[in-house]
């Protein structure tokens, strides 16, 4: 499968989707001008990945900021992963948040409530 590797900017996150090396990560800031267009390749990639997923997929979110428009697209990504999980693949979400950022921690908790996938909250020091 092709590898998606996007370098983050001040308004778009770093994205790595690499099946062979088992790296699935979205990190940084997310407030793209057009969220739907920006995340479309990610959702398409996950759609293809579903059929040939690794035995275990650990998907990491390490965001420091996302706007409300991005929050909906993040949920769409999580729902794709939930589908994979329902279809018997092992999927784990790791939600990283800066240890002094309650809002980001809470955002993780809210997503964990909405989707039914193993969800790990991981705090780190910036």
């Amino acid at each position: 499968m092709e590898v998606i590797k996007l370098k983050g900017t001040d308004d778009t996150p770093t994205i790595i989707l690499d099946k062979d090396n088992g790296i699935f990560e979205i990190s940084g800031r997310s407030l793209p001008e057009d969220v739907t267009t920006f995340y479309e390749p990610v959702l398409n990639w996950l759609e293809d990945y579903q059929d040939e997923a690794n035995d275990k997929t650990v998907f990491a979110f390490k965001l420091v900021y996302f706007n409300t428009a991005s929050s909906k697209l993040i949920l769409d990504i999580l729902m794709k992963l939930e589908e994979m999980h329902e279809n018997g693949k092992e999927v784990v979400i790791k939600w990283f948040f800066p240890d002094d950022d309650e809002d980001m921690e809470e955002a993780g908790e809210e997503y964990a409530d909405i989707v039914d996938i193993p969800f790990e909250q991981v705090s780190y020091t910036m």
Partner: protein
Amino acid sequence: MDKSNVKGFLEFVYDFYRSMKAHEITLVYEGEITHQITKAFTSLTESNMAKESEDNSVQKKVFHVMVECLQNISKHADSFGSDDFLFAGRGIFMVSKGKKDYHVTTGNVIENDKIEELTEMLNQINSLDKEGLKQLYKNQMKEGRLSEKGGAGLGFIDIARKTGNKLEYHFLPIDEGSSFFLLTSSISRNA
């Protein structure tokens, strides 16, 4: 401008400057809100706050509120009149900083037939406590599909959650078809 007009204009500029100072306005803009403008204003305000060693969580809140307010104008401001130069997606944007709080204020034209729905939405948000806002946000995210403009009604809820304050708003009539919608959000500096 003839000479007396120039003098009058320059006096107006001084008055304008003094009222900005009196209202502790640190940023004011009128015009089209583009993505570039949003990026420029947020990074300018961020670097000012960092320079003034503003509390980290206050900085984050101001950033959140600014982004959502600017996006509301760019996606939802209606055009006023039929003249070509009056196009949609523009409005006034203002940041003021007092001793106790920051205020982020927006003003834009909206069509009168949207007022009822907007008022309902704002009143509903203002009636909810922290837990209620959280539930509403989750429901909107799950059920509310992104409109073609990319707004999901989440912006106002997010502002209320992040600031912990009520959304203060006002409509002023322009003509039979449209009104000016003003919204101000305050972010407390003693986080």
